[in-house]
């Protein structure tokens, strides 16, 4: 469904992505793993249209979307939950989630009332329903992440880009959340690409496939257990000369 073909992205002299290719099928769950600065976020930005790649193409459902603006991609069904939550501090939680519904793949087909209903439904799902009339600025960081998820789900995506959705969450919640995402994704046939830096356990339980990025290049790809057991991982993560 999503194909990234030989994408390269530079910022000035810095090469953030080097000739990266990947494919995500309908309903598949892919984890993209890598330490800080490995180019994960840039990859997401290329997929959902914040950046245009310097080289390479991005295809979605067989259509070349490389030149489509970000908002058009959202209408096609690519949703994203941000790593550092981008709350709209002065509007309510419910409205915030409704924005997801209004401008996602429902775009132009539903009105505010339906959007608010969808928002309520998704807020119930992530357990934020009780806070739906709070201003988003008053939520805690974990709550904001839940809201990001609810907003992304409300847009009825075909492809959901989860950017470090579980980082900074208590372990018990992480499990719950990943199970939840998995269930919703299975029910609705959503393909998921999730960026993971640290919380590997979730990845193991969650992903069908893991892709490892390091310094802008794809260096490993495979099943989760297989990738995690690879000795390269420790070196990438904890640094070289790990010699106690």
């Amino acid at each position, binding site marked *: 469904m999503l194909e990234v073909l030989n994408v390269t992205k530079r910022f000035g002299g810095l090469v953030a992505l080097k000739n990266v290719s990947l494919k995500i099928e309908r309903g598949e769950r892919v984890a993209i793993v890598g330490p800080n600065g490995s180019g994960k976020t840039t990859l997401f930005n290329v997929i959902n249209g914040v950046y245009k790649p310097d080289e390479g193409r991005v295809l979605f459902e067989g259509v070349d979307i490389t030149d489509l603006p970000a908002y058009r991609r959202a209408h096609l069904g690519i949703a994203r939950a941000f790593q550092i939550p981008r709350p709209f501090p002065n509007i309510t939680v419910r409205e915030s989630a409704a924005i997801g519904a209004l401008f996602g793949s429902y775009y132009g087909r539903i009105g505010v009332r339906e959007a608010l209903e969808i928002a309520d439904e998704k807020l119930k799902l992530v357990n934020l329903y009780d806070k739906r009339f709070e201003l988003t600025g008053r939520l805690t*960081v974990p709550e904001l992440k839940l809201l990001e998820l609810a907003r992304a789900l409300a847009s009825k995506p075909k492809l959901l880009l989860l950017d470090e959705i*579980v980082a900074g969450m208590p372990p018990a919640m992480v499990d719950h959340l990943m199970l939840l995402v998995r269930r919703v994704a299975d029910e609705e046939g959503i393909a998921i690409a999730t960026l993971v830096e640290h919380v590997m356990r979730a990845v193991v339980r969650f992903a069908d496939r893991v892709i490892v990025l390091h310094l802008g290049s794809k260096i490993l790809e495979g099943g989760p257990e297989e990738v995690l057991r690879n000795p390269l991982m420790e070196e990438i993560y904890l640094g070289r000369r790990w010699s106690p």
Partner: protein
Amino acid sequence: MSLALEVRGVESGYGKIQVLWGVDVTLKEGSMVAVLGPNGAGKTTLLRTIMGIIRAWRGSVMMYGLDITSMPSHRRVELGLTMVPEGRRLFPDLTVRENLELGAYTRRARERIGETLELVFNLFPRLKERLHQKAGSLSGGEQQMLAIARALMTRPKVLMLDEPSQGLAPKIAWEVAEALDKIRREVDISVILVEQNVALALEKADYVYLLEQGRVVLEGFREEVLARKLDIVRSYLGY
């Protein structure tokens, strides 16, 4: 050995969002402390609070027995506290020389500027070659060196580094680390190091704190921590 820095029960955050929940950190004079932890654990916030860039909501920060909790940051610099911020925060349009001179902005530092410059050039000979270049035109590694050099120009007694290896190729990161070692050998200085590269941090630090969600979850001397390597790995990889 007296205490260079003593952080007691510090709570702080941004706007209404609390990030640190009662953090205690102690830095003995002449030692190097590493603060580890996954993204979002509050490491940078801790440094910014110690530096006085953001205000501590509760708790206290003492430096050599002096309460500096509510002092503006430039006063703290005068007292000998400084930091190499995350992302370096150099002045891209100023030359390397001007960046260094700014480091020696306080009176105490200015008086010894010649001496310090010599020291810095000894540590980072490459900076001397690039003296009149604009900071923005340096490579990543050079920028990091300049950032450290600029911090040294303030004649710190306590130096805090926020992820000095970030975005650097491993080889360069280790060069930076070596330079840090050299600094500690040549200048009488105490260091707080916040680092992603656990291996690097563990190799250099005397004492280690592991931060998770704004709280210290593990601390100990380097040897103790190395023995509990698994805990760190768990924290990082989330097993």
